[in-house]
């Protein structure tokens, strides 16, 4: 699987029995459908989190391609109403893409999913003590 930004091969990281895909070159993170299920537990809940994002209208950022199907992903606004961050979501439901900078803004949101499992895991995995 290649990075959606710089096309370098991505590596898979496993911690606490959860996997994420990571680009060592540009520090982008890919969470695929199965990985989101692992993080958020129930499939239904993972679906709800993915569905809750709103599609960003007239966004200037260039579209990224899904690392799985190669189709253009859509820009979505994630997070609660007041504070949102821009992510890329595969239209076919293959997963979510975080640019290196987007991770920090997701972490600052805190309430990403109802229990905050996703930000806390990403914080543990990707921020060095």
């Amino acid at each position: 699987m290649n990075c959606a930004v710089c096309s370098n091969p991505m590596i898979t990281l496993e911690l606490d029995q959860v996997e994420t895909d990571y680009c060592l070159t540009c520090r982008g993170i890919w969470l695929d459908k199965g990985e989101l299920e692992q993080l958020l537990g129930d499939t239904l809940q993972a679906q709800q989190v993915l569905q809750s994002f709103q599609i960003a209208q007239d966004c200037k950022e260039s579209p990224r391609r899904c690392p799985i199907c190669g189709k253009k992903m859509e820009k979505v606004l994630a997070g609660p109403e007041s504070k949102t961050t821009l992510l890329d979501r595969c239209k076919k439901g293959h997963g979510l893409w975080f640019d290196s900078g987007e991770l920090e803004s997701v972490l600052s949101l805190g309430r990403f999913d109802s229990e905050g499992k996703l930000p806390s895991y990403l914080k543990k995995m990707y921020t060095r003590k």
Partner: protein
Amino acid sequence: MWQQIHINKRNSILLLLSMGLVLAALGYIIAAAIGGSPEAGWLGILIASAIWLIMTLVSFTSGDQILLASSRAAPVTPEVHPQLFNIVEEMKIAAGLPKMPKIYIINDPAPNAFATGRNPQNASVAVTAGLLTRLNRDELQGVIAHEVSHIVHRDILFVTLAGVLLGSVVLISQVFLRGMVYSSMSARRYSSRGSSRGGGGQALLMLLAVLLAILAPLFTQLLYFALSRRREYLADAGAARLTRYPEGLASALEKIAQQDIPMESANQVTAPMYIANPLRGKKYLNLYSTHPPIEQRIRILRNMSQGASLADYEQFYRSVTHKAGMIPQSALSKETVSIRPPSTEKTDPSSLNQIRAMGDLMRKVNGFKFLTCPCGVILKIPPNFPTGKAQCPHCGHVLSVS
């Protein structure tokens, strides 16, 4: 059983012949239209036959390899999935296959399976990683028995050859239709109006050729799909008999039906090979379906509470589909096949750990390296990773990849 195989063989030959006729007709009319005379048509038949002959020879010698490669199936050793090998061996013995089929795993989360090959001596069974993670032993056995039945019924060669023929018809039509578009464009640009050579006769032939080029692929596909549907029922009947446990396949089909993700590695030509239509969710396939309705197949299998013989299947096939029987009388021997109790082997296919284990398995098959960082993070490095070092994003430790 033997008559059934015989009928299947005869149907295959009939189908291949009629597909060959379509191909020849296509070659004739296209060449006649381009050349402007019926004599040119014979050359067209010659070219079409040559294409067909080459493709048939290729598919006969290495069609299974082409299909497996285009489905991105990787051959596996027993250590990768011992249970799968165990079940295939069990079904091989039950069906009396002369040789153990080769086993492949397709790295795809959509649960599906297919069998291919030339004959029972040279057969292969491929299952997706998604199938292995979602099914328990009885269900997996049902699916494998279905595929082994395809091998026993000699469906595998038919599917390979029909796929290649269909491919040829599509190829010739496409080349002609595209050629038409380009030649008409250049004609408009470089020749004055009204200077066409052939006159009314050629125009008519041209029209016919265009019509045939559009219709032939559809017609061939319909033929192919109509016959492949019947084969699915027959393989289900065979699977119930081999496993003596129709519920296994029924619940496997149910699980497969629940998944509506289309397979990435399947296409229109390979679709009829699979146990369930891999392209569900893609709209254009509603026009002609490659597989019988999965609910009907499940209902027939679930009705079989008294026995698992072909006659039992036939009985409920009639009552569920309201169609005349499909298994020939002679195959419906008086044998009684009693239903066996479910397997006691406990598996928890829904557990996330098992799904992750499957992912790791596919990575090992595909040549990934596994590095464990002192901080506890496992780094899974793809074979095409360019540099020799990888830094753990969790603790910053630098690990050597080579």
